[in-house]
């Protein structure tokens, strides 16, 4: 993937929003990064020059991001984050291996913010097929901010993670109560193994008398079977309306005759789904921001 258009874009949205000395500093760095050591230092001190404010982006800016790199959504990116990403894109190197080696070193000495920045930058970096292990490593983190950077609003996992690692990302999002609707390309990569893990997890939570996110059933809908549909029946008995919505939406995504039959008994929910008033987006939003 050519990275020059990405760098040009990032500079264009960043420079008008940072103090003048920051502009000079950053342009100097980008034009003169020759040695690895200079890169490490610039990467660390970037926030001192750019500040850490969230960028103000227009709809057109966001649309352009999506066009440049499908799934790239800088809506919540901060000035230091954009500057550091520009520096990472400018790492001096000869080969893909050398690039990854420098990247690994900066990962291994990164602080909390820097780690999140690095993981969020993965979909923009050159040699994307070289970053698979790094992305899978990010999924293993315990630090919520870092996990969110790789799991949410980030197209890299959808595009490059193998199924086992992808499933771990999704299941860990459920386990850590992260909003599934913010995972890029989730519906595209649903699979039977993931659906089974989700159902097993639901049983665990129910056995423990704990709450369960209604978003979980998004993973199950297309893989309903005569054996597992009883879980949806159970969900429809829940005292919570949002669980009924999730149950109905899961049913609506199944071709199983039993599912059609069960959904037919829920005319109000069916109508709301058909009208577009109940979607996984609305369920996710109300589950996390109620």
């Amino acid at each position, binding site marked *: 993937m050519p990275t020059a258009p990405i760098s040009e874009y990032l500079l264009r949205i960043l420079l008008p929003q940072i103090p003048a000395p920051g502009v000079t500093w950053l342009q100097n760095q980008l034009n003169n990064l020759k040695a690895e050591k200079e890169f490490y230092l610039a990467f*660390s001190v970037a926030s001192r020059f750019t500040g850490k404010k969230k960028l103000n982006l227009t709809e057109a800016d966001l649309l352009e991001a999506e066009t440049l790199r499908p799934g790239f959504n800088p809506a919540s990116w901060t000035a230091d984050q954009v500057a550091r990403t520009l520096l990472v894109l400018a790492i001096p190197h000869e080969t893909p291996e050398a690039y990854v080696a420098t990247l690994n070193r900066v990962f291994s000495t990164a602080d*909390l913010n820097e780690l999140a920045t690095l993981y969020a930058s993965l979909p923009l970096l050159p040699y994307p097929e070289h970053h698979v292990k790094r992305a899978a490593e990010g999924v293993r983190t315990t630090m919520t901010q870092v996990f969110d950077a790789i799991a949410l609003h980030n197209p890299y996992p959808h595009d490059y993670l193998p199924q086992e690692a992808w499933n771990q990302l999704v299941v860990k999002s459920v386990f850590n109560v992260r909003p599934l609707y913010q995972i890029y390309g989730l519906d595209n990569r649903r699979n039977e193994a993931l659906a089974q893990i989700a159902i097993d997890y639901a049983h665990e939570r129910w056995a423990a008398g704990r709450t369960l996110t209604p978003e979980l059933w998004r993973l199950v809908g297309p893989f309903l079977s005569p054996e597992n549909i009883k879980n949806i029946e159970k969900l429809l008995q829940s005292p919570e309306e949002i669980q009924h919505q999730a149950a109905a939406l899961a049913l609506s995504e199944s071709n199983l005759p039993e599912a059609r039959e069960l959904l037919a008994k829920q005319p109000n929910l069916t109508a709301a789904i058909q009208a577009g008033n109940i979607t996984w987006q609305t369920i996710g939003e109300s589950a996390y921001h109620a």
Partner: protein
Amino acid sequence: MLFIDPHVHMTSRTTDDYEAMRKAGIVAMIEPAFWMGQPRTEAGTFKDYYSHLIGFERFRASQFGIKHYCTIGLNSKEANNEPLAEEVMELLPLFVLKEGVVGVGEIGYDDQTPAEDKYYRLQLDLAKEVNLPVQIHTPHRDKRKGTLRSMEVALEHGLDPAMVIVDHNNEETVKDVLDRGFWAAFTIYPHTKMGNERMTEIVRQYGHERIMINSAADWGISDPLAVPKTAELMLERGISEESVRMVTYQNALAAFGQSGQMQESDWLAASPIDQSLKFSGNSILRGGQTPRVETGENENDSRIIR
């Protein structure tokens, strides 16, 4: 009241301690890089340790609404392994300019060997180069001489005393440190360093200027609530609220804030809930708030640390 504990080794503490510290009003803490209890033998373990301080430990604190800062350095004990020390010195520039790194520390003397002296001096130069405060560990043995020497060497290397925090003071060292214009930090740590009754008398005698207290809580018998407990004791024993605020909050902020990496807005703006209202200093010791560690407390008065 809000408190800052400017020296505490959270890596060695449990999450229960974070909970208790938050409830007691601690809003920010500084974790100096130190000796882990047994000597490391590989430079890579130092790298992972430093990145743990600026990564996971910062995250862990944030879960309790506490801002975590650190100082980065090669401690005096491990400076005695010279081949290792050489490698660690090469790592330091990768870390000292990270966000939230508020100084070079804790560095200084332990046995006061030539190797300790060498790496102490090199790190003073590093701190000067990157314009960061220095957090000095003063030795347990031959303390007074070691403290004086720490300051002499810092001055010799051209450091401004206002940028140097001399830690682990006692009645025998405080006057020399204050007279020379350095910050004097006191560690409330049972059995080996200061007790908080003695600390109260030091503040009564020397006032609150350039004095700060910390817990240095670590893997030893120590107390992560030493700062708020001492604040309460001081108030009860007639030290003014202003003085208590200076030695348990403001001076630490002023000294380490010189790094440009620590400002009040970091915690005041970050948490809209005013913890001082919710967790007032007066309530800290009521009902089950005492940490579940043996702290050397007086049975009749849990605030006393001896």
